[in-house]
């Protein structure tokens, strides 16, 4: 930086005054709004973080210690853990300018495989879990192949896969619920993600820790590894990425397979949370995860946004839901406010984008 300024000093002597004034004027004009806009552009997860903190402060002020306690705040973490994990998978796909409508179905299918393989075929639970994780990854691989090789639009592929997997889930499970008690007695490891521990009044579960580690890990990988840069590049402009030497096919395959695997983990976490294996769970997880991602500031047009934002997005929904319930508001108010947030989030995203290029 200092090198360039020194070099520019050499030939700027004549036009120095006028140029700098224009530049300064421009800077002042951008000053207030422009600086904020630029800052948000560089830190896309900041907007949802601000909304999240504001929501916590407002509900904390209205409800006092009932809401603003380690117990209540960690309860929100527990309530959003499933959506949070699925939203991580969804974020990856949306960063590539895709969308995955089959996330919830993959999650339920994986949990059903884990349960049924254990109880119907008598496999050791650990083997059943591995099978469940494999099934999730395999479905993701099919999605990825259809998107990247056959060049079908992600929306269509995953719309179809959603129905296929959900139908397969009901056919295979015969809509049979495996009860919590049976799992606890014979295959406690299936409920691993529900195990909880106390830290000074705060209650964490393995599922919550998994969600946090997963999102921090992915956030690091997306920012600081070649793979992560490739994901952004493919989402921004696949042709340009291809020309600059990114293997677009391999990147897309990795994203969809990873998404499937994460959804399968979400299925495992789901068993921990609800205790039983129920084929009717998670049918709205696709919409809930997209909601978290969008409120979290990841652009649906791909290539922009931070996965941390998705976590904040999920938490915002969780804070609103619990806060409004504690205030005694009708549940419809939650949906109404979340709807406003979704539209506001996209509006803010569009506004921040204007600083780009």
């Amino acid at each position, binding site marked *: 930086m200092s090198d360039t300024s020194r070099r520019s000093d050499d030939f700027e002597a004549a036009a120095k005054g006028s140029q700098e004034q224009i530049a300064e004027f421009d800077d002042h004009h951008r000053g207030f709004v422009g600086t904020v806009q630029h800052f948000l552009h560089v830190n896309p997860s900041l907007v949802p973080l601000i909304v999240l903190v504001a929501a916590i402060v407002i509900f904390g002020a209205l409800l006092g210690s*009932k*809401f603003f306690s380690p*117990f*209540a705040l960690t*309860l929100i973490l*527990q*309530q959003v853990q*499933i959506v949070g994990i699925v939203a991580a998978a969804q974020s990856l796909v949306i960063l590539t300018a895709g969308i995955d409508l089959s996330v919830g179905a993959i999650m339920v299918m994986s949990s059903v495989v884990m349960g049924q393989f254990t109880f119907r075929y008598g496999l050791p639970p650990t083997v059943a879990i591995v099978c469940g994780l494999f099934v999730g990854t395999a479905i993701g691989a099919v999605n990825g192949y259809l998107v990247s090789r056959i060049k079908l639009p992600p929306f269509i592929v995953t719309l179809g896969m959603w129905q296929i997997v959900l139908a397969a889930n*009901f056919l295979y499970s015969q*809509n049979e*619920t495996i*009860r*919590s*008690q049976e799992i606890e007695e014979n295959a406690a490891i299936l409920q691993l993600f*529900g195990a*909880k521990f106390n830290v000074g009044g705060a*209650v964490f579960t393995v599922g919550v820790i998994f969600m946090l580690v997963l999102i921090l890990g992915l956030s690091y990988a997306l920012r600081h590894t070649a793979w992560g840069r490739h994901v952004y590049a493919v989402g921004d402009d696949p042709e340009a990425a291809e020309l600059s030497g990114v293997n677009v096919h391999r990147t897309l395959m990795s994203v969809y397979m990873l998404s499937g695997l994460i959804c399968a983990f979400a299925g495992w976490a*789901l068993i921990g*949370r*609800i*205790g*039983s294996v*129920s*084929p*009717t*769970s*998670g*049918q709205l997880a696709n919409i809930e995860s997209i909601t978290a991602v969008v409120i979290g500031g990841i652009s649906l047009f791909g290539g922009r946004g931070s996965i941390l934002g998705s976590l904040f997005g999920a938490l915002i929904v969780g804070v609103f*839901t*619990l806060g409004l*319930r*504690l205030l*005694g508001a*009708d*549940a*419809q108010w939650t949906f109404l406010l979340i709807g406003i947030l979704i539209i506001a989030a996209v509006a803010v995203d569009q506004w921040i984008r204007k600083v780009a290029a």
Partner: protein
Amino acid sequence: MAGSAMAEGETVCLITKTDTNPFFVKMKEGATAKAEELGMTLKAFAGKVDGDHETQVQAIETCILDGAKGILLTASDTSSIVPAVKQARDAGVLVIALDTPLEPIDSADATFATDNFLAGLLIGQWAKATLGDAANDAKIATLDLAVSQPTVDVLRNQGFLQGFGVDLADPNVIGDEDDPRLVGSDVTAGNEEGGRRAMENLLAKDPTINVVHTINEPAAAGAYEALKAIGRENDVLIVSVDGGCPGVQNVADGVIGATSQQYPLLMASLGVEAVKKWADEGVKPENTPGKDFFDTGVALVTDKPAEGVESISVKEGMDLCWG
């Protein structure tokens, strides 16, 4: 569905909310068996998801076109379906609402259903009797179905509250009661996830809740997980409605204190019989005396009978359960 029966018999349609809910699966089983016995042809239709009204209207139109003698219907949308039902009745098709009454109830020729208010009343009375004096300072949470307050939800909730001795205010509305014992209500969508979340929300509001009414047994199972997470699974009384096999097993295990059992198989088989009678003799079914529908019965299932509340044992409940 034997080939010979299909060739000769009259057609009866069964239209359920979904193909996947065990309650409707059992209904279909009952209807299929009875149709076969009577030499009728059963055609089954279902919505794609609960609430899929469009597909049900299409199914009614298909049945009219098909010359069906009768339609057995569990409506997803109890008032919007009425014009389609009228069309069928105008075409001479007998329409029987199963499980879910239409709005108004006389839009169908007959309704074969569980008395959901009575189902709620039984578990309310049982909970009150079981708690004894402690019922006077109980902390009650009700885990309901959906924000739209569908009739079945309102009937069970209000029945429970009346049975427990809570003043109902408007019996058609959940949540307008001002009894200080009521902590609040939340919605569950009738599944485990929703049950757990709703219970957590209400416990955050008041951690001393000790009586929980749940709209169905999956919601109860979810509520139990939430209570277990804070170590209160043994000092909270959960009551429910449905009588599915996992639910009755949960009564045996002490997860649920008592549940009111309903009989989908019976609803369907009686429905098929009624259509047969309509086809042969032109006679429509009649309501249970004193009610505006045909009551297919309900029984309280528990191994801890309370005085003054009639109940059947878990073993009997297991023999009659579904799903």
